[in-house]
């Protein structure tokens, strides 16, 4: 019972034969022996393998190490939420887009008056870059129905967007993004498109509410 859960699926979904399956009503918990899932990257590799096999998978966050018993408790407590999450990502995965510029150069002035002025202008430039990057990402992903856009990361000079798409729309989506990429502002130095991933960014569960009854 020291198996590590890597996600949830439905009872009728295909699954690699070496992945453990624990059936709980309409849900299946997918798991692996702990030695095959020791690190976040190992867990992610197994989730990707399941996804590429054709499993519709609501992935456990790879950073979290969840033993089978905890996953069972969650499935018990949140069956409707897990099923709702699985229906949201049915036959779909996420494509992850990342736009990058050169990171903001920190100001080096030491004189107090110059330092403040330099910081102000640096902040103004950074805000302008963030707005430009966010707008560029909106233009790039315009028309996609399910998008999860990250905040602009000033330190890395990047903004990331996860797009939920059908498994059979990968080529069309790549072509559409490549076409739109031609119109990106010149300040943008890079565009990385990766996927198709399990739908990590679309696997949120909603916490059930607890109603207090007034005395």
């Amino acid at each position: 019972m020291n198996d590590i859960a890597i996600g949830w699926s439905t009872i009728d979904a295909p699954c690699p034969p070496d992945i453990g399956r624990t059936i709980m009503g309409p849900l299946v918990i997918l798991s692996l022996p702990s030695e095959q899932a020791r690190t976040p990257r190992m867990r992610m590799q197994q989730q990707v393998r399941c996804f590429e096999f054709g499993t519709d998978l609501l992935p456990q966050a790879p950073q979290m190490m969840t033993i089978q018993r905890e996953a069972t408790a969650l499935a018990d407590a949140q069956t409707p939420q897990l099923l709702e999450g699985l229906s949201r990502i049915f036959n779909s995965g996420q494509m992850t887009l990342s736009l990058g510029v050169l990171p903001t150069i920190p100001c080096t002035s030491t004189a107090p008056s110059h330092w403040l002025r330099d910081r102000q202008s640096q902040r103004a430039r950074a805000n302008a870059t963030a707005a430009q990057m966010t707008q560029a990402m909106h233009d790039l992903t315009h028309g996609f129905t399910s998008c999860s856009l990250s905040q602009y990361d000033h330190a890395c000079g990047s903004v990331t967007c996860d797009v939920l798409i059908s498994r059979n729309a990968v080529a069309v989506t790549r072509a559409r993004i490549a076409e739109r990429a031609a119109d990106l502002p010149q300040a943008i130095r890079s565009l990385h498109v990766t996927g198709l991933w399990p739908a990590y960014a679309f696997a949120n569960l909603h916490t059930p509410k607890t109603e207090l009854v007034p005395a």
Partner: protein
Amino acid sequence: MQMASPTEAMGAADGRLVDLVDGLLNHGVVLRGGLWLSVAEVDLVFLGVDVVLTTPQKMRGLQ
């Protein structure tokens, strides 16, 4: 524009792809301690914390 499959991205040395994969590691389902407090269907307070449920032995093994 650079395209990469998940396998290529996970094995890449390119800093941007490494950052991108690291970002994904934090997504997905997390076990979340949370409680909505509401009265007469009016939400008043939400208490929430992300938790790691594991044994001390396993935590020591991860460190």
